[in-house]
């Protein structure tokens, strides 16, 4: 019952529903990429700079090296979505751990954690990501970790605030009076109650991570073995005055995906925090 009510509330938000449908299509395209485009998308297959629609075999045209734009876009969806999801997972893991410890224990742990959060927040995010990628090297793993490291602070703050509100509730005191340990109380009692707003934030971090990755790739610091959307935009930038579609097509894909993720985030917010939904 609970679950169906949740889905109903989520679906009532039309934007969120549309966003979910589009993201599912993108995810489906990403998953089925090897079926429809079994060959390496970075292979040259036709004459360069074919405009979209010029040749029915390449509906989105080809880039400056004669590579199929559609194949690269579909394979790129895979890289882009994976980076977004994993970076958000890293950020959520760090953010929830730090925020939960800070909010639950308070005192010097809280002070130290919050000063660390502020330290991270004072560094401009993009520059921080670029610095980490340059130091660690441009591999997919390092980019995911770098984005996670700059994106965890809002999650930590949110988790801390939730824990501060919940830690002195009577059901937590009841658990303490039964002799439940701190770890059990944090993970099994408080966390399930603190998660809804954190999930909303995590879904927004996915969108932010995709933008970060695009920026990194656009600047040429992305993983050279992976055709993410950001890299496609970056590859096309020299031809932006003649063949602008090479930049525009992956650019629109990024925009639509990020927009849809934000819509989903809003929808989750409405569905998980029903008291705020009719404002």
């Amino acid at each position, binding site marked *: 019952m609970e679950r169906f009510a949740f889905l109903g509330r989520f679906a009532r938000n039309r934007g969120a529903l549309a966003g979910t449908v589009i993201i599912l299509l993108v995810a489906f395209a990403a998953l089925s990429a090897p079926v429809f485009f079994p060959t390496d998308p970075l292979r040259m297959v036709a004459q360069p700079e074919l405009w979209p629609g010029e040749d029915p075999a390449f509906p989105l045209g080809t880039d400056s090296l004669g590579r199929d734009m559609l194949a690269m876009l579909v394979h790129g969806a895979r890289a882009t979505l994976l980076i977004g999801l994993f970076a958000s997972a890293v950020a959520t893991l760090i953010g929830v751990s730090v925020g939960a410890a800070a909010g639950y224990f308070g005192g010097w742990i809280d002070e130290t954690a919050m000063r660390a959060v502020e330290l991270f927040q004072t560094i401009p995010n993009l520059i921080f990501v670029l610095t980490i990628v340059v130091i660690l090297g441009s591999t997919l793993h390092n980019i995911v970790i770098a984005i996670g490291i700059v994106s965890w602070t809002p999650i930590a703050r949110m988790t801390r605030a939730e824990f501060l509100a919940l830690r002195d509730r009577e*059901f937590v*005191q009841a658990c*303490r*009076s039964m002799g439940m340990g701190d770890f059990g109380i944090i993970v099994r009692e408080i966390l399930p109650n603190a998660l809804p707003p954190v999930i909303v934030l995590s879904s927004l971090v996915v969108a932010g991570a995709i933008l970060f990755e695009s920026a990194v790739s656009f600047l040429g610091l992305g993983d050279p073995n992976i055709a993410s959307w950001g890299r496609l935009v970056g590859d096309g930038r020299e031809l932006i005055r003649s063949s602008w579609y090479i930049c525009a097509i992956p650019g629109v894909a990024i925009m639509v995906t990020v927009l849809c993720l934000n819509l989903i985030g809003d929808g989750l917010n409405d569905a998980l925090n029903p008291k705020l939904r009719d404002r």
Partner: protein
Amino acid sequence: MTALLTLNNVHVHFNTAAGLVRAVNGVSLDLGAGETLGLVGESGCGKSTLGKAIMRLVPVSTGEIRVEGTDIAQLQGSALTAMRRKVQMIFQDPYGSLNPRSTVGRSVAQPLVLAGWKPEAVAERVDTLLGWVGLPTDAKQRYPHEFSGGQRQRIGIARALALNPRLIVCDEPVSALDVSVRAQVINLLEDLKAEFGVSYLFISHDLSVVEHIADRVAVMYLGTIVEIGSRDRIWRQPQHPYTKALLAAAPIADPKLARTRTRTVLQGELPSPLEPPAGCPFHSRCPIAQARCKTERPVLRATGDSAQAACHFI
């Protein structure tokens, strides 16, 4: 009568930004097995803090809290966990005391699981417990928000009973309930006491409830006990001026009786526990205070065979 719970000069002090708050300031009392001790006093007098100190939910600054002879005031780790099973708590707010994301079955089973019971034994015990407090066994799969306040308080009672505790600290267990449901919960508590011989420390500001359930009553004011004695003695012959004022402030159902009684109405507010008055804590509001009360703090003295009061002029 051997004492189940003995408090010896218990202090609970909190360091706050505004200064040191003496929430509990030297409380000593005894609670026998199978006895119900009512703890009354106005809001902010420290009665809930004292209950939480006995549960070790707030740190005890100094003093002894003996449960069956063992001092638990500074126990840590597994020794504390073992003692916790003997003392359980029923909370004031039936909406806050159950995890909204746990099923009722999980909440009630929690103390058993923590005590290391086997899953089959836990399931059986949960059914028994829900039966005792008058809830259907299918309540197990449901969530707290599906229950009324009175039912939730029953769930809290079932959880408190799970490990056969010797003492249950009841922190205003019926204050948040409708009057119509209060009697049911009070009667349930009395039935359970008769059946299992459990003791209650019954914290309340509702004098009519305490009069009904308590064997003995302790009156608390500003972190200290000003009078303690058997219920009948306290109600019929209150000695301390604060007890008199407190009882006089309680409404009486019979308007004819109510009109005839003389009332002493207390002036002023409860002093801040940040700066408790020197001497007797009650002297700033006491109708019979004299110069001595401002300098010398009275101790509890016997005022009869079953009562003690802390006042210089008794």
